[in-house]
């Protein structure tokens, strides 16, 4: 009873400890991320330039000219050469098509997509399949022939991805898979990131993807490649990686989750997707982290000049439940 005066002290102490625990996530980095951070630190990056993006002015006439050139020359469109093009238009893009060949131009950026929809995501009959090295080589040749203005040093291959198909049998009574699976490649995608000076463009924009059938025929491409103004906006020092890392740890540890694992780390120019106008391109850090095995990977972007996180856009209000 004599120690009753200690109770408020103990309660306050417990609450403080509890609060601290509840809001302090343990932040861990994968070895790969730590290696990427160390590699970047060793480069001693100082001032980094920002680029001015030249606004794209959409016009139906120039879009038509581009479409005529593509349908007249590109090997993907050879089956419909000389045939009438039909045109449709949405808020975001204009689409020229003939048969199953589509050519799309984004109105905001001039980004283009050419696809043979008879072959895209369709395995089809294949006489002789090619490997990933062949796919890479064929894509490089197509890129050079189709976009000669893009110099090899401006576009770095980031990977070859496959779309795979598989099918098999299932015994619904026993609830088990039976027999063996048949699988095949439906298409290849060879991806390129744009290089701006010594840094890559990261994000959905400034990318080239070349699509190939399993037998190595080019079946389309996608190009988001903005034009830059003649002048660079400015050059500023970026927040050093180590400083950024400690700030990141502080920020993430405020999260209520028990453990956060940072498993992605990128440094480069942020490039938005095909449907977004972008006035300038500045350096950023992007980190990816998960909260645990059931968690999505959160990709968060930070302004590399300030180290501040870029806030998500204002959300729309959702629907309300009808009263029961």
């Amino acid at each position, binding site marked *: 009873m004599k120690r009753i005066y200690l109770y408020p002290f103990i309660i306050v102490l417990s609450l403080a400890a509890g609060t601290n625990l509840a809001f302090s996530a343990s932040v861990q980095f994968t070895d790969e991320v730590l290696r990427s951070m160390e590699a970047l630190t060793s480069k001693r990056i100082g001032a980094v330039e920002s680029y001015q993006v030249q606004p794209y002015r959409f016009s139906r006439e120039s879009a038509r000219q581009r479409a005529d050139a593509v349908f007249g020359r590109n090997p993907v469109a050879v089956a419909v050469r000389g045939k009438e093009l039909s045109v449709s238009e949405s808020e975001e893009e204009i689409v020229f098509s003939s048969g199953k060949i589509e050519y799309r131009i984004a109105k905001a950026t001039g980004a283009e997509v050419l696809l043979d929809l008879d072959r895209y*995501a369709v395995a089809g009959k294949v006489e002789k399949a090619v490997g990933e090295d062949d796919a890479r080589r064929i894509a490089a040749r197509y890129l050079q022939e189709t976009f000669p203005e893009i110099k090899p040093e401006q576009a770095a291959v980031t990977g*070859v991805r496959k779309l795979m198909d*598989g099918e098999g049998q299932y015994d*619904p009574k026993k609830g088990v*898979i039976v027999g063996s699976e048949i699988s095949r490649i439906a298409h290849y995608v060879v991806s390129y990131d744009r290089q701006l000076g010594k840094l890559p463009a990261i*994000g959905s924009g400034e990318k080239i993807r070349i699509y190939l059938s399993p037998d190595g025929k080019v079946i389309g491409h996608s190009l988001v490649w903005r034009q830059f103004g003649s002048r660079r906006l400015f050059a500023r020092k970026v927040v050093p990686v180590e400083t950024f890392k400690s700030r990141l740890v502080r920020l993430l540890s405020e999260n*209520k989750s028990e453990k956060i694992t940072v498993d992605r780390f990128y440094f480069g120019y942020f490039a938005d997707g095909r449907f977004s106008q972008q006035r300038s391109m500045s350096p950023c850090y992007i980190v990816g982290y998960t909260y645990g095995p059931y968690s*999505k*990977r959160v990709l968060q972007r930070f302004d590399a000049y300030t180290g501040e996180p870029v806030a998500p856009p204002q959300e729309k209000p959702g*629907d309300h439940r009808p009263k029961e």
Partner: protein
Amino acid sequence: MDKRFWRSFLAGVVAVGALSFPRDGSALDAGAESVEKYSSCGCSSGNLSYCNDQASMFMDKIDNWHTRKFWYKDSNAWNGDLVESELGTGGTDYPYGDNVHILLVSGHGGLSGTSVFNGYLCKHSGYNSCNFSTSNTYLGEVAGQSYAAAHTGKLRFLILCTCHSVEIGPAGDRTAPKVWMPVFGRGKNLMYVMGYTGTSVDGETTDEVGEDFASKAAGSGWTLKQAWFWAIEDWWADDTGAVISRGSSSAEAVNNRDSMKLSWGPPSSTGWPPSWWAISWHEG
């Protein structure tokens, strides 16, 4: 043979063609549920930032061609909406998740073992759990199937923008068929599931995925497979998309996986229950 014979013959051919071609051109009912603020719905999952954008952009696009029914977010997005209402456990798939033809769900997700998928929305008083599970989903069930006595299910196409929703698993022991074939078997209307194998991203570079899918599948008439993989490939991250469909033969399952469009009507299978699965996924 006179002209009437040929007209009648032609009409018959057209009618047979129309019946055998699994299409119905009517507008579909579309819904979406998404959660970012897990901390405010009593669940311990970490908060996210772009799931609500992903769902709202999907709805804003697909309602150009189809009928917008609902988009519930955060504490209004209930796990119970994917749980069978006739199980008596508080599920509300009727009148919500299974009362639309196409549903997009965006939030956390994961596997329990190798044959059950758990999706994470918010809990609510009626179904007080932090997740829904494929072990208690009866989606797209029709008269004569279990739990269709009071209400049949409408769902045909399910998009799960979560991690591991169509987990492919190792060759020889695929996960997606073990998770989804039992669910397909419970509902003749449910024909196609689109999602991710491995971890999926919550970020500004992937919030357009649902919108892009809607634009291509509903606006441009692409197949579901083309629209889904295009939507994932076009927005930057190393996300790996995956889809699964089913059929009563290998050819039927493959045709459903490769050629199905939003305009296809159920069941798109000549026999029941389906005994063949067909999957596609990104690799590399």
